[in-house]
Each structure stands twice: as structure tokens, then as C-alpha cells.
């Protein structure tokens, strides 16, 4: 499986992008303690004043600086671990909870498939962005009169993460449960049962190997979804880990330099019309992050298909000539003309 993944250039591209960014972000934290380089005034070699912050990307590469002269590139680097890390972590918690519930549902309650699917179908009606906004706004936004948060950073981030994880658990667990339930309908399950396999044996040896790759696919899909939701919330002014609001109606500040937050902070008409790089930097990083996960997803799916074909070929142990013939066949072609009974 891992070997097959290594051969997928798309997967590796996405994977390396994400891993290197997170690693660099942590490295920066431990080595430089998240120190933000500040460019207050810029002079050319003759000592002539060039300008005051915010500097554009051409003056301070690669992403320019913000209004106080802090380097946007470094800010984005510090934020990488928050955005990517939070998305992965939330998706992981979501998958863990959904796996347990899906296990129960797929193994024992699959008779009620229609009811569960109908309920989950109705749940998808509710737009998560808006729902999350309503629940989270009371916790995440700083009280603008006293300029204090009700809860410390870790509790805020934890609550937001847990909420975003739990809110979609029903949908994902029914998805996983349906996968498990359909796997049980395969013919080889009946054979294994007749041969005396216990429930545990059936699950571990005949369901799990088919389920795991699908779980991995769902996991990456969930990461993408979480990133999109965090981005939406940031756009609406609800920054991950808390929105600092020092005066009503005044500029917002993020407590973590997280990408969606940087979008939300700079998403006002003044920034966009005069300093477009303030919002363009984070949105480009966010987009690249999501595209990286999408690449991983496609690579993963391709690797799974390739893996299946290889296994089929390895399983076939026939005489040399026949074997060659079989290799020439497409993965899904009829060997003999099939006669339908109808």
C-alpha cells in the first residue's frame, strides 16, 4: 500500500507540501520562538527612504508585510501548523468517533439502514458554516468592552475543534457504517461464516482490509472539508482560536496567525483596494493547502486501483503461457461470453 502510494507523483506532491510546511512551522517555533521580523522603514543603498509599512511583495518578498511592518511570509509560516494541524486533528477526531459509531451501526444496526440514511440526509440540509458561526461566536469573540476573552486560548481552540469534529460525526459514521454493511453482503463473507469464522474474525480478516483504504480516502476528504469550514468562518470574522476585537467596529486581530484568520483580519475594503497582498497571501496558501490535499486524494484513489490490479495478477498462479494471456487482459473484461438467464 505504502509502496503504491510512493509511486503516485500526485500523492507525493501533496504529502510533501503539507509535511514540509508543518515541519518548517514547528522548526521556526522551537528555533526562533515565533519571532516576527519587522521592517519599519525601508532605505535604498544610498540611504534614501523608500517607504513605510505595509510593504508590497516586491519590496519585501515573498508576501510583503502587514500594516505594522511584520513579515507576512513568516506570519503565514507560523500559522501553517495551526491551520493544517487543526484541520488534520479535527478530521482525525471526527474519523475516530465516526469509526466507533459506524462500527456499531454497520455491524448491529444495519437493518435500520433506511431510517439512518434518511436522518442523515435531512441533517445535510443545515449549512454547517452558519450553524457553527451561531454556536461558536459567543465563545470565540472577545468582549469588545472589556477586551478580554471568557476562556483561555486552549479551551477556545479545543471547543471549536471539538464542535467542528462532532457536528459532522453522524454523517460520517453513517457513511462508514454503510460501507461496512455493504461489505458484509459479499459472497466470501458467507463462505467464511459457513467455515465457522466468528464475528470478530470476520471483521478483522475480511472487512477491515477492505475498509481501511476507504477510511483513508474519507479521512482526506474530511480534512479538505474542515479546511473549507475554517476558511469560511475566518472570512466571516470568526478566527480559529479566537477573534480579538479591541473596539466595536474596529479591526480584528487573530490570536494564532492562522491562515483563515489572516483572511478574516484583512477582509475589509481598505485592505483589498490598497493592499491586496494582505489578503492574497493567506488565500493563496489556503488554496495551495486544499489543492495539496486534493492531490493526495486523487493519488490515493489511483494507488488503490493500481493495488487491486496488482493483487489480482499476483494471485493468479497458472502455466506460463496462460499467465501471459491473462496479463494481456484488461482488469474488467469478460473471459467467456456470459449467458443471461432472462
Amino acid at each position, binding site marked *: 500500500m505504502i509502496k503504491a502510494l510512493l509511486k503516485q507523483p500526485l500523492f507525493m506532491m501533496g504529502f510533501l507540501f503539507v509535511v514540509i510546511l508543518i515541519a518548517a512551522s514547528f522548526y521556526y517555533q522551537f528555533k526562533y520562538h515565533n519571532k516576527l521580523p519587522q521592517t519599519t522603514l525601508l532605505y535604498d543603498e544610498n540611504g534614501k527612504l523608500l517607504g513605510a509599512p505595509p510593504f508590497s511583495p516586491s519590496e519585501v518578498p515573498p508576501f510583503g508585510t502587514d500594516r505594522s511592518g511584520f513579515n507576512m511570509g513568516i506570519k503565514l509560516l507560523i500559522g501553517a501548523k495551526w491551520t493544517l494541524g487543526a484541520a488534520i486533528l479535527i478530521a482525525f477526531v471526527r474519523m475516530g468517533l465516526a469509526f466507533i459509531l459506524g462500527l456499531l451501526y454497520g455491524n448491529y444496526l444495519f437493518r435500520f439502514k433506511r431510517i439512518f440514511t434518511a436522518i442523515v440526509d*435531512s441533517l445535510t440540509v443545515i*449549512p454547517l458554516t*452558519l450553524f457553527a458561526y451561531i454556536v461558536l461566536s*459567543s*465563545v470565540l469573540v472577545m468582549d469588545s468592552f472589556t477586551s478580554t476573552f471568557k476562556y483561555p486560548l486552549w*479551551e477556545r481552540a479545543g471547543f471549536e475543534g471539538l464542535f467542528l469534529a462532532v457536528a459532522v460525526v453522524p454523517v460520517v459514521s453513517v457513511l462508514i457504517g454503510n460501507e461496512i454493511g455493504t461489505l458484509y453482503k459479499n459472497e466470501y463473507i458467507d463462505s467464511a461464516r459457513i467455515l465457522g469464522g466468528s464475528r470478530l474474525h470476520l471483521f478483522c480478516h475480511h472487512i477491515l482490509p477492505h475498509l481501511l483504504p476507504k477510511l483513508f480516502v474519507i479521512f482526506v476528504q474530511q480534512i479538505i472539508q474542515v479546511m473549507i469550514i475554517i476558511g469560511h468562518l475566518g472570512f466571516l470574522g470568526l478566527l480559529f482560536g479566537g477573534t480579538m476585537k479591541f473596539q466595536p467596529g474596529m479591526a480584528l486581530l487573530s490570536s494564532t496567525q492562522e491562515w483563515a484568520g489572516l*483572511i478574516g483580519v484583512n477582509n475589509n475594503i481598505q485592505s483589498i483596494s490598497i493592499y491586496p497582498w494582505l489578503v492574497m497571501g493567506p488565500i493563496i496558501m489556503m488554496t495551495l493547502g486544499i489543492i495539496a490535499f486534493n492531490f493526495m486524494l486523487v493519488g490515493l484513489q489511483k494507488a488503490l486501483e493500481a493495488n487491486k490490479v496488482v493483487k489480482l495478477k499476483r494471485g493468479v498462479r497458472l502455466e506460463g503461457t496462460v499467465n501471459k494471456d491473462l496479463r494481456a487482459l484488461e482488469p474488467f473484461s469478460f473471459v467467456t461470453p456470459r449467458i443471461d438467464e432472462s
Partner: protein
Amino acid sequence: MTGFVTKSGAKFILTAIIIIFAGSLPKLFVGISFDFSAYLKEIHNVLSAMIHPSELFFYTQPEVTKPIFPYLWHPFFYSMKIFFGSFLLALLIGLIFSYFTFFLPRRLRKVISAIVFIGESLPDLFVIITIQLLIVWFYKQTHILLANVGGMGDHYVYLLPIICLAILPSFLFYRVILLACEDELGKDYIDMARSKGIRLPALLIRHVLRNMLTSIFFHSKTIIWMLLSNLLVFEYLFNIRGITMFMYEYPEPLIFTICMLMIFVPIFLFFMIVQLLIQWFTGQRVVV
């Protein structure tokens, strides 16, 4: 027919109940702790508000209240026009583009599918902020303001929001339709029709389009809910006084639930009509 009515009636009631239960959930959290009695009370509030909608109020200022109902109709219909407008536009774009794709050379088709893959992976936020920057750039160049980004106003624009909202779903529709088409073209009756001398355009329009209606319908369900999420962000961007903006500005569980129910009704009716139409179409096909 009666089976259809009871089935969709049950589905409608189930969804309404779930919207009420889920919509009241924010009351369950007080900060980061729970309050279950407040949750039950909120469900009771929602139910009584549904019976007496004229008694619903919202706060325009801390002390001033305003009844919701005559006020909300305008944003509601406005949002729904934009919503369905962009949905239909996306569907149309998807259909037209996928139709012409079949007449392109194979190499070009590969390039297009790569572009569509990237376009599909773009988060809506990227599209939104790019549009925003383009509008500002266009204004700087020509002094024509295409949309009121960032300002406040009560004017109602249709064209630009509909087009912008339709960008991402049309990518999705394009891919879904293309996949369904290719699936359909592999079937036996296509060979039969081709051997009879029916040309590709006639084949696509007369046979393939009709046969893939069900597939498009199933996918359009997920697309429509995605569109609803995007609607909020687009209304926020264009400063449209629509219903999702209303929900955003007054983040009360009660208002959220009532508005969700209001949005759900037309979408549900739309699905019902489409479902009936498809039954009618495919039913005809079976007879023929």
C-alpha cells in the same frame, strides 16, 4: 402516486423535525458548558413561534424590536431568486460545455479535464476573494462599480451574484454530466443507434440526456446544499440583504431555525417537481 405522496410527506416532516432539533442546539451550549433545560425550552419556543409567526421579533437595536414577518419576505424571495437562478445557470453551463466537449479532439479533452480538476479543487473562498479583487481592480480602471463590495445599501442586483455563485457548481455539474454521459455512451443501445446511422448530436440530445437525468438529479442534491453554504459567503461579499445575511446578523437559534425551515420548503418543492418530471420522462421512455 399515493406512495410517492406519503413517502415525500414523511421525508418532509422528518427533515422539519431535524431542523428544529438541530437548529435549537446552540442553546444547549452556554459558553463551553451545557444547559439541557434551555435546549428543551428553545424547542418549545420554536414550536410556539411556528404556530404564531406574527409574534416573532428581532432586535434592531438593544432596546428596539421589530416583527420579523412582513420584513423577512423581501430578503427571502430575493435570496431564493439568486439561489435558484445560479443553480439553473450552473446546470445550463454544465450541460452546454459537456455537450461541446464531445466534439473536441481527444488531446484537448485531457487538458480540459486537468483544468476542471484544478477548478474543482479551488476553495470557494479563493473564487470569492478573487472576484472581490477583480471588482476593485475594474473600478480603479474604469470607475464603474460592478457590485457594492464593502459598502452598505439597499439596492438589489441580480446578474453578478448569480454568475459568481454559479462558477463553482458549474464545474461540479460539468464533471458529473461528463461522467454520466461517458457512462451512458458505453451502453449497448448506443452502438445500436449508431449502427442505424444516428449522429452524435442527435444521440446526445435525444437519448443520452434523457437517460442520465436521474444521475444528474442525485448529484444535484449535494450540489444544492453546497450552494446554500456558499450563498451566505456570497451575500456577505456582495452586501446583499438576503435571508442568510439576516441569519448571520441575528445569530439567534430561533431565527436560524425559522429561516432554515423557510429555505427548506422551496428547495423541497423543487426536488419534488423535478422528481415527478423525471418519473414522467422515464416512464415515457419505458413505454416507447
